[in-house]
């Protein structure tokens, strides 16, 4: 029920947004697609129909038996009983009503009663699931398109606008990267190619061994950066294909929805990365990217000192954000507007928000640097204080409380030195104690564990001797652990676990 309203609400909102923002054919297609969404059966089932119906279906589909019985009509099908008629054809109900024996005329009313229909739909669930996934992917695609169109204003005007926007972004980042890492003139392509190949092999190996998508992403990034650095770019589709291949290899079957989402996000990231870092999105923009590469070479030369004059007449059509610092006077009237201007390329300036990011990072870093030397002391002091408070519970008035605190402390110490028995009951912990503890320790531990259980879970008053017994075990544990641990463990025990507090 909830789901249906949510689905329709989102759908209406999306359609309304698109309607208000739409002013060209590009968006109208998306709007049309959006409007059609609830009529595509799998999408409707996934997002617009209530959840309960699905559950009921699967539950009932296991075994459905229907008992059918056809009652003969009152008068037409029956007649008086005459000797010789089969007793089985007597219509007992009507006979009782009419007080005379009546028999069925037709054979149809006979023995239909026991008929069983057995309906099993085993595969239905799986099929529905796959179609749900497809529907989810479809709807996500539409949503993404809509979101892109809404977020990037130029995209509303034309596809070219969207590409230009992406292109200018990639240009900015590219120029920044090239300005940071200037490519020497005499750089050979061969070592770069070898390195790239190595990176790819490494990526393949690690993704196969670790099965981690994050690693794949990291090395994919390295791979792309290499390409940028050495100016040896694969076409984008090769990069995207590589990404899909490596990440897709790790998809577990049957594919879960979460996994699919992660996979989608990964592909999106790789795509964005290649689109932003590497010039040339497709065949149409390949020519444009050629120009960029030329310009970048010029820039590199500019940076290294030799400043060639730009070829006459080489101008670039691109979007310029009018709200830049130089054009302050124009800011007021054309705020948040983008328009096409023809400018001669003189220099590439970084977007101004980079400065803000830098400042925030610097601030965080300085706070970290100032606070860092003090943190260990603060932490250790807090630990010490807490340990002392814990000790207070050892000698509390309530003996049960004391036993619980002491035994808990014993287990905490034991597990810091000998981890690996997570989530065992204390009673069962006695069976997996380390071997280097003194003779008879395990039995005492088991006895105290029983005392602990009684103290924790029963209402019995506990005698003082029991507390003393557990306290002895604590002391024994303390010495045993101290004697059997190495320097690193001792350091940890003393300062972090406050063994001798």
């Amino acid at each position: 029920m909830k789901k249906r309203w949510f689905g329709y609400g989102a759908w209406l909102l999306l359609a309304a947004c698109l309607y208000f923002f739409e002013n060209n054919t590009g968006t109208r297609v998306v709007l049309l697609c959006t409007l059609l969404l609830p009529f595509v059966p799998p999408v409707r089932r996934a997002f617009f129909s209530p959840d309960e119906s699905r559950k009921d279906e699967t539950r009932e589909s296991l075994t459905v038996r229907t008992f059918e019985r056809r009652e003969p009509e009152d008068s037409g099908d029956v007649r008086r009983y005459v000797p010789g008629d089969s007793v089985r054809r007597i219509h007992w109900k009507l006979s009782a009503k009419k007080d005379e024996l009546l028999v069925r005329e037709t054979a149809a009313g006979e023995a239909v009663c026991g008929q069983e229909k057995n309906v099993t739909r085993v595969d239905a669930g799986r099929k529905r699931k796959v179609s749900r996934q497809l529907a989810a992917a479809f709807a996500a695609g539409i949503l993404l398109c809509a979101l892109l169109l809404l977020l990037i204003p130029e995209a509303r005007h034309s596809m070219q606008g969207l590409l230009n926007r992406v292109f200018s972004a990639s240009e900015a980042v590219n120029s920044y990267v090239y300005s940071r890492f200037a490519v020497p003139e005499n750089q050979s392509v061969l070592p770069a190619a070898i390195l790239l190949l190595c990176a790819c092999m490494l990526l393949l190996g690690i993704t196969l061994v670790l099965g981690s998508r994050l690693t794949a992403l990291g090395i994919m990034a390295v791979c792309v950066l290499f390409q940028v650095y050495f100016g040896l770019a694969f076409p984008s589709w090769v990069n995207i294909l590589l990404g899909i291949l490596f990440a897709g290899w790790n998809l577990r079957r049957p594919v879960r929805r979460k996994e699919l989402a992660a996979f989608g996000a990964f592909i999106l990231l790789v795509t964005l990365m290649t689109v932003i870092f590497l010039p040339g999105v497709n065949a149409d923009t390949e020519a444009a990217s050629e120009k960029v590469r030329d310009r970048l070479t010029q820039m590199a030369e500019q940076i290294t000192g030799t400043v060639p004059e730009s070829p006459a007449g080489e101008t670039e059509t691109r979007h310029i954000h009018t709200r830049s610092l130089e054009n302050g006077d124009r800011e007021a009237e054309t705020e948040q507007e983008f328009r096409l201007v023809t400018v001669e390329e003189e220099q590439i300036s970084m977007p101004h928000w980079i400065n803000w990011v830098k400042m925030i990072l610097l601030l965080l870093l300085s706070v970290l640097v100032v606070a860092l030397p003090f943190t260990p002391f603060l932490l250790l002091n807090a630990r010490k204080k807490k340990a002392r408070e814990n000790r207070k519970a050892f000698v509390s008035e309530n003996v049960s409380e004391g036993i619980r605190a002491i035994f808990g402390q014993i287990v905490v110490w034991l597990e810091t030195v000998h981890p690996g028995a997570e989530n065992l009951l204390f009673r069962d912990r006695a069976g997996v104690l380390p071997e280097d503890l003194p003779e008879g320790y395990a039995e005492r531990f088991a006895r105290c564990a029983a005392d602990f259980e009684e103290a924790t879970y029963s209402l019995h008053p506990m005698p003082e001797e029991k507390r003393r017994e557990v306290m002895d075990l604590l002391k024994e544990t303390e010495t045993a652990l101290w004697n059997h641990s190495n320097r690193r463990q001792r350091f940890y025990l003393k300062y972090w676990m406050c063994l001798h507090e």
Partner: protein
Amino acid sequence: MREQLENVIAEVEKVIAGKRKVIEKILTALLAEGHILLDDVPGVGKTTLAVALSRAVGLSFRRVQFTPDVLPSDLMGFSVYNRESGTFVYQPGALIGTNLLLGDEINRASSKTQSALLEAMEERQVTVDGQTYSLASPFLVIATENSVGTAGTQFLPYAQMDRFLVRLSLGYPDYEAQMKMLRDRRERNPMEEVCCVLTREELQELQREVRSVTVKDAILDYVTRLTMASREHEAVEVGVSPRGALFMVRMAKAKAFLEGRDYVTGGDVQTVFGDVCAHRVLLKESAEETSVGRVLDELLKKTENPDRHGLFAGMKK
């Protein structure tokens, strides 16, 4: 363990060898006043076990072999017209006056019969023609379900499975046990040697004591966390119901009592968890590679036990 209960187990073991654990579990369920679903292949001694138990505890025993044409009136009784007196006379059904009812192959009964039985199990009374008859006390149903040859059977719906306290399985005897069984039955029937070591009144007294076993909040917290975790597990479609949680506490109490304690520990909950919850958890269709048992084990492993709940808060590296 209490001597009386030890005696009962010893008596039952005269006829069923090497199944001490299951006998203990059944006795625990009896103490917890819950019903048992036995899920097993034919011929491993389900009926023998039930008969021996009823003899050892001095309970009246009846057995109903369910088939598709057993009707609710067979269980609950019905009224017939007595021509001489001109009145309707109630003929009691199999449920009336029975302490221990063995419902064989309950999944073969039609759903109306199943629901009539389960209704009686829950309410411990039956109503026929507006007249309410209460069942004998204690009233324990041991229902069996064959896991083979399921053609033409009606599986117990999930809601009805939920009413059984535990689902157990007897399993085949090992070599020693089977040899002993064959040897014992060479010339005599050991069933005749089973004698009554616990009267019905004593059993009821024990059941009363079980009800007064201490359960602290820490244990209730553990049970709640376990059941919640079962509902949130990724492979689970339907998790443990609140009734399941209630039954778990009841079973844990009986378990603690059987061990001679008057308080429930985390270990008791862990011991009964699998038996109480196995039939209450429904896995998703997509979770083919896992089984209910594995999911429950995982839950036990993942959920922090009450002994150490909160112990390591802020302690780990």
